[in-house]
């Protein structure tokens, strides 16, 4: 049986690991290579590493650093940040990334996403869906002044045949008071493409709620691992206790 995945998310600001709240106020939380080493030794299911400022600061991701992070990992790694060309993707795959996570370029150029899927296969291309709630429903957070609804963006990406969605609630990011279950449910209703839900995990009850109320395949978390004693294994034990399949 396919197991649900518990995925630590490392957000990078160009210098070190940071953790945001509602996508603002990045707080330094450590060194990415050390963090990757610890997560590998704990046997986590997968790792996500995103340079969250690469696109807005018009930087390319630091390939040397990403290579050092991936070197620590004998599990799958997804990398995101500033990806704009086929060559960018190829450079990341060459140093051992399994998937790339794209957002800004996906908002600007759906043709590029189609091209990337044709070249590397669906399974390689994940799309970050950063959504916030408004009175008119969920919209996609971005710094480009592009206004697009959750539904429209997800449907565009489905038609590009992408392989995965990393769905983050901007409102719940870093707040550690639970996941945005409605957001996850809305995306699941639109598609059968696998989803990683992120944003809001702070206690065992939140993971319990997420997996018992939705059919999500994976959860990504950062704050709970940075700021509490809980480990990915604690979350797996909690899920196992309610009959959710996990890899222990």
């Amino acid at each position, binding site marked *: 049986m396919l197991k649900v995945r518990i995925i630590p998310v490392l957000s990078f600001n160009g210098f070190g690991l940071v953790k945001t709240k509602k996508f603002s106020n990045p707080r330094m939380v450590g060194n990415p290579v050390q963090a990757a080493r610890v997560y590998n030794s704990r046997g986590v299911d997968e790792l996500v590493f995103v340079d969250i400022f690469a696109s807005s600061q018009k930087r390319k991701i630091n390939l040397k650093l990403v290579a050092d992070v991936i070197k620590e990992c*004998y*599990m799958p790694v997804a990398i995101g940040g500033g990806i704009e060309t086929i060559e960018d993707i190829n450079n990341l795959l060459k*140093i*051992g990334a*399994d998937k790339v996570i794209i957002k800004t370029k996906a908002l600007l150029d759906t043709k590029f996403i189609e091209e990337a899927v044709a070249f590397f*296969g669906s*399974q*390689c291309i994940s799309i970050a869906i950063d959504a916030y709630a408004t009175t008119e429903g969920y919209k996609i957070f971005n710094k480009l002044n592009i206004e697009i609804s959750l539904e429209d963006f997800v449907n565009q990406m489905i038609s590009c045949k992408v392989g995965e969605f990393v769905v983050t609630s901007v409102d719940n990011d870093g707040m550690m008071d639970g996941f945005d279950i409605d957001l996850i449910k809305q995306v699941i209703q639109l598609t059968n493409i*696998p989803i990683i839900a992120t944003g809001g995990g702070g206690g065992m009850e939140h993971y319990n709620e997420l997996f018992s109320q939705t059919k999500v*395949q994976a959860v990504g978390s950062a704050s709970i691992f940075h700021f509490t004693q809980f480990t990915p294994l604690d979350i797996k034990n909690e899920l196992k206790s309610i009959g959710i399949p996990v890899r222990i």
Partner: protein
Amino acid sequence: MVAIIDYGMGNVASVQKALNFLKIENVITDDHEVIKEAKTILLPGVGSFVQGMKNLNDRGLVELLTDEVIVRKKNFIGICLGMQLIMEKGMEPFESKGLGWVKGSVVKFELQDLNVPHMGWNNIQVLNDTYYKECQTDDFYFIHSYHVVPESKKDIATTVNYGFDVVASIQKGNIFATQFHPEKSQNAGLSLLKTFFEINA
């Protein structure tokens, strides 16, 4: 020496890292002479079937690899796309010819209630345990939208249940290939690779 075939299709670095960890001498190469000298050929790969075959053809590797593996019976291990390419034909994104070392095809998942790609950790059922004896756990990492359908059930080493019994690895003489990624499957994957290279040392 293991020749990890470099044909511009993805995850060579991860495969090399796993072999280095196991202290297995290896080289990433598309050099015909180096491949001829190697004791074992490892074909990794991520991407579409058509692109994979095109890249092998562009480097003159289709004839060379076929000669080494089928005629000279060199040890071969294929991973993910490197497993799919050994079949006769693929459908990604349209029907096209593969290396044809194992009879059968590669087809897209057609599942009503399950997500495609099949992505994540799933447990395998072992039919031929030659290389699996040292694995402590049976969960391996899968990530694929197409799956292999061999003509002969005898060629199937392991299966994985995802809506139905999907082929997870193939073993046929000197040919071994996995749909999952042993290099990404932590201890279980490293144990599998260790056993394969010990037996074929």
